[in-house]
């Protein structure tokens, strides 16, 4: 087996940075922290939420991207530990979420991704996907999704 060079690892990461999350296409699987590491012969991924129905689609999308790049011998391995949390989302990921209209996860009160106001209220702790809750801005009155801090 050929040992993976740093250049090749970077190339794999570059390829993966173009694999979008199927539910939130503005962010990639790298932004979300789904990709844990690239080893000599595998991409190690971790599921976000235990029951996230996108998990299988994400794995299939990564497989396709690797195959297209001629990396069909690279395996995809899954690890559960340490458990994924929203702390694994990159700073770039936070910005992309905000620009897309989803408030990024934070320990403090949700900030409206449209007008930036912190004067907001939670409408439903369970939102349109397992990773989001539903909020409303009390200033601009727009409803918005928020990535659950987890």
């Amino acid at each position, binding site marked *: 087996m050929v040992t993976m060079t740093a250049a090749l690892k970077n190339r794999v990461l570059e390829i993966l940075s173009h694999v979008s999350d199927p539910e939130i296409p503005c962010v990639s699987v790298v932004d979300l922290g789904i990709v844990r590491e690239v080893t000599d012969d595998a991409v190690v991924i971790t599921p976000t939420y*235990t*029951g996230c129905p996108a998990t299988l689609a994400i794995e299939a999308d990564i497989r396709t991207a690797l195959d297209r790049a001629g990396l069909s011998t690279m395996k995809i391995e899954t690890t*559960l*530990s340490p*458990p994924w949390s929203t702390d694994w989302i990159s700073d770039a990921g936070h910005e992309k979420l905000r620009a897309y209209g989803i408030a990024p996860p934070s320990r403090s009160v949700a900030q409206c991704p449209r007008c930036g106001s912190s004067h907001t209220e939670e409408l439903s702790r369970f939102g349109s996907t*397992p990773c989001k809750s539903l909020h409303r801005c009390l200033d601009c009155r727009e409803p918005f999704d928020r990535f659950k801090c987890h």
Partner: protein
Amino acid sequence: MRDSALFDYACRLGDDSLILGQRLSEWCGHAPMLEIDLSLANVGLDLIGQATHFLKLAGEAEGEGRDADALAFHRDVLDYKNCLLVEQPNGDFAQTIARQFLFSNYQELLFRELCASKNVTIAAIAAKAVKEVAYHVRLANEWMVRLGDGTAESRARMIAGLEWVWRFGEELFDVDAVTEALIASGVAVDVRQLKPEWDGRVAKVLAEASLEPPKPRRGAKGGREGHHSEHLGHLLSEMQFLQRAYPGAQW
């Protein structure tokens, strides 16, 4: 290299999650409000996710090549090891919430302890899932109070729902020879020791909901040995239909 104790234990954990997840999915498109529909479907998804991990582990412990899907779709009633509580019918929304209230409070305590399991896979699944179960607990606790301390109608329904599920609470804290051995080796949790904390949590929420705990009665048990109520067979006939009609079908 069959580890039959681990197989049994992982099946019990996985089956509890799978069957309750399947039950909750029955609400999808039928719940009283959109938010509740989303909530119950989300909780169901979390539970089915847990089941996938636990049943995968069970298949590995068994060592006969069965994966999570094979265990979920190709076992019959007698081979299911879930507790009786989770297979009980949804009834109305109040009964569904009462069932979730007893179960999620139990599961949160269980997973909290399982994070320290000597089996690293069980510990990893528990550490991942315990954060999600905290949401389930909040949802169920809040609805217990909202319905119990709500209108005359919601209160009457909650009293009836709680009465229905109450007899299935005891089984959650049973320990038999299978778990006894795994407790000794640090893999399983001694659930008996969690009972006082669970009792305290349940009592606190019931008090807040102005509900009396139902009268004690003989607990209904047997799920861990595969002795189920008639409801499980009906649930499986729906859940397993496709794989029974078209074995091995993929899409």
